[in-house]
């Protein structure tokens, strides 16, 4: 019965464009709706939702680079083409930064969601139990491969989008336009500094470069990314604008998760109320699936750098490292928030923009191209 699956599941073309979109959407929105709106409001005040639009524009431009590189090096993901471009040793050195970055993002995402669950859901349960179970489930999903992850996102993505839209409708009665006004109260500085902050979060979808070679139509990479980022931006925009319009900037900026607070505000004709748990379930589900694809990307990247045949044995060790980092690095939620706010954007900007543009420039100068 050998090769039974092999007959049906070729390694290439295992995800289609639709799944590509949902993979990226879950990635962006799960990461960016959790804690980000609060930070963003702190940074950009009432202009927060506008700076998301700015970041969206920047990110779409960045996506052009990634999509182009995907086409220029057909069948290769960003780890592989950094080796192709920069050579065996330097290329590996640069290439390993990408999987490590994915692991870092995974650490931040899951730690964030576990904290949220701990605070809102299960205050007496130790945080570590929640973290361990989240990691276990996302590693289980990651072990099943990208195909399974893609299908999960295909189920969860629309539900998540729908949940946010429903949420927005339900809290609309509490929304006051006047709290969102006036725009550009403090000039354009908040807008300009807010945009990079959110760009670094949207930028996590550089993971698209890991998906492109596995997509059945790699040339649609840009289109997929464009629609995913647009939907993601819409979602984050909704959450941010509603938070400001409901809580005012003074309160909203210090909320650890404005989305949850929004869900707590739901009181629809005094009947549908106290349903934030349900929304949180969607959010946490999305983060777990998103982090499973991050762990997958880590395993895949490391396997390619070290030249392994399969990435699967690396999934659990990878999740364990991430878990160890998550537990050991942050003594409290405050440290996590600070790291996320001040340190992460710098790292992210370096990896997402700096490294990729470097690769892009070197590829152009040295006229490197993919062979396949």
């Amino acid at each position: 019965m050998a090769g039974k699956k092999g007959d049906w599941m070729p390694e290439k073309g295992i995800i289609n464009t639709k799944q590509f979109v949902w993979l990226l959407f879950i990635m962006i929105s799960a990461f960016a709706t959790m804690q980000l709106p609060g930070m963003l409001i702190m940074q950009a005040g009432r202009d927060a939702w506008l700076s998301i639009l700015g970041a969206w524009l920047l990110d779409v431009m960045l996506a052009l680079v990634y999509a182009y590189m995907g086409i220029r090096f057909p069948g290769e993901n960003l780890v592989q083409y950094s080796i192709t471009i920069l050579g065996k040793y330097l290329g590996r050195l640069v290439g390993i930064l990408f999987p490590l970055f994915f692991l870092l993002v995974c650490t931040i995402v899951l730690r964030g969601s576990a904290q949220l669950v701990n605070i809102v859901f299960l205050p007496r349960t130790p945080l570590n139990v929640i973290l361990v179970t989240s990691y276990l489930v996302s590693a289980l999903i990651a072990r099943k491969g990208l195909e399974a992850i893609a299908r999960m996102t295909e189920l969860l993505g629309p539900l998540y989008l729908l949940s946010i839209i429903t949420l927005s409708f339900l809290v609309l009665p509490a929304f006051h336009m006047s709290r969102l006004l006036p725009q550009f109260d403090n000039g354009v500085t908040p807008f300009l500094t807010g945009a990079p902050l959110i760009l670094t979060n949207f930028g996590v979808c550089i993971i698209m470069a890991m998906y492109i070679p596995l997509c059945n139509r790699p040339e649609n990479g840009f289109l997929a990314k464009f629609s995913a980022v647009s939907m993601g931006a819409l979602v984050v925009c909704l959450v941010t604008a509603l938070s400001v319009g409901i809580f005012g900037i003074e309160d909203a900026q210090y909320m650890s998760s404005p989305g949850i607070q929004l869900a707590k505000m739901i009181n629809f004709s005094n009947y549908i109320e106290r349903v934030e748990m349900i929304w949180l379930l969607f959010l946490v589900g999305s983060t777990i699936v998103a982090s499973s694809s991050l762990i997958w990307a880590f395993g895949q990247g490391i396997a390619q750098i070290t030249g392994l045949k399969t990435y699967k044995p690396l999934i659990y060790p990878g999740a364990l490292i991430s878990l160890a980092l998550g537990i050991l690095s942050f003594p409290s939620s405050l440290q996590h928030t600070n790291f996320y706010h001040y340190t992460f954007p710098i790292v992210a900007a370096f990896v997402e923009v700096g490294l990729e543009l470097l690769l892009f420039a070197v590829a152009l100068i040295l006229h490197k191209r993919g062979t396949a």
Partner: protein
Amino acid sequence: MRPFRFGKMKKASEPELIQPRVAEVETELENPKLSSSLADNQTTMQTIFTNCPDFMYRELKIGQERVPVLLLYMNGLTDEQTVNGDILKSLVNIKSSNIIVSGSNTIEIIKNIFLEIGNITEITTIGEVEEAVLTGSVVLLLEGTSKALKIGTKGFDGRIVSEPATEGVVRGPREGFTESLQKNTAMLRRKIKTPNLKLEKFVLGRVTKTEVNIAYLDGTVNSKVVDEVKKRLSLIDVDSVLESAYIEEMIEDEPFSVFPQIDHSEKPDKIAAAIVQGQVAIFTDGTPFVLIVPTMMTQFLQSSEDYYDRSIYATSIRLVRFVFLTLALLLPALYIAITTFHRGLLPTSLLISITAAREGAPFPTVIEVLTMEVTFEALREAGLRLPKPVGQAVSIVGGLVIGEAAVQASMVSPVTVIIVALTGIASFGIPSYSFALAIRILRFGMIALASTLGLYGVLLGVLVMSAHLVSLRSFGVPYMAPFAPFNLKDMKDSLIRLPWWAMGDRPRLIAKNNNNRQRQKFFLKPVPPDDNEK
């Protein structure tokens, strides 16, 4: 022994390593040829069938040369009338005919000229003779030749065609398959009248020699699936196959999954519909249950009656079934999670009544729910196995004792009884019994998760379950299709059922390239007569 299926670990390029069992090779090794001496053959057969009083042999001499002929058959498996009336009479008639029966072509002459029977094949080995006798044929042995004739006289009084007990319908055909394979395939043939309906025969089980037929519609079916089915069937090497479940467990993709990956039915109309849309049916002799591959999860939530009711009603009942599914899986878990972890989700007045109802309850909610669930499962099992009249008594006693007395004695809170009863009803709402079994088992897992981590635990459980579901495949078709991978065209017959005139395509994943059901380019949508045409 069948190779243990960790095969998926191996590379795709190695399938040749395991050779499908080729029937001829083995028979030659094990089965000696028939001897040309009738006496030798007779002794051999007698040794084989020692202590088999139902094994009959009848010697007679035919033709003018008085050539000795031996008829072998099993009493009771053959149609007595055919043996006595047709075969014996024809053989005796040889005497009066003027064709000389002698020499090497005797057997040909008997076969071609004298026997008034349709189904005759020539066989040459002892094994074949043995099999033929055991499957109810009459074997004719002739002196001086090493060939024998297998005369199909299968006559076995089986159950008559009756309404299937497991799949009742209000509207739709009421016939169900029986235990006889011939009858079953005949019922199928009656529905699909095209030579494209192919039936291929396998004999499985060293001891039981069960006949297994696969049926598919050539030109519609995905030939890869047929090849895969044949390959997997040919790898089966066990002593017995007594029910289709034996086969099911040996050819499914993920042996340790709780979910059934192969659907089965005892309704000819359902099997015919499956074959027409490009699936392969596996008939097993001795059981009315016919397997359908490949299977997607939605099939377990569909009943054949969905296609006979009006599409709007069918769609809404399917939606209700999805709700049932969720309830059957999650309701007790949600009850525990919400009342013991997240009271906030309850409306205030409901919370107060639940609190009041639990006042003074001796056991924790989890224990209460678990006990009640187990009791309920036991009641159901008892009701199922006991003779029908007693079964009803059991359910009455169970309902009275558990539902009423336990609450009266304040051993169980009434809300728990309501929840368990609702769950039970919901699990009856799932049309497929085997799928409901999977849900019943998972329900307990969900209860455990809910009682440790609340809704978060339930979420984890659902995530793991759906990760498992989306990675399942049944003969190459994703189990969760058309939801994941999403396919809009196939959605027409999943959560919803479009009217027949709108179902122009067969499911893409099953019928691959041969998916055009209607030959017209236009829809068959009925249009009221146009007034302007007059």
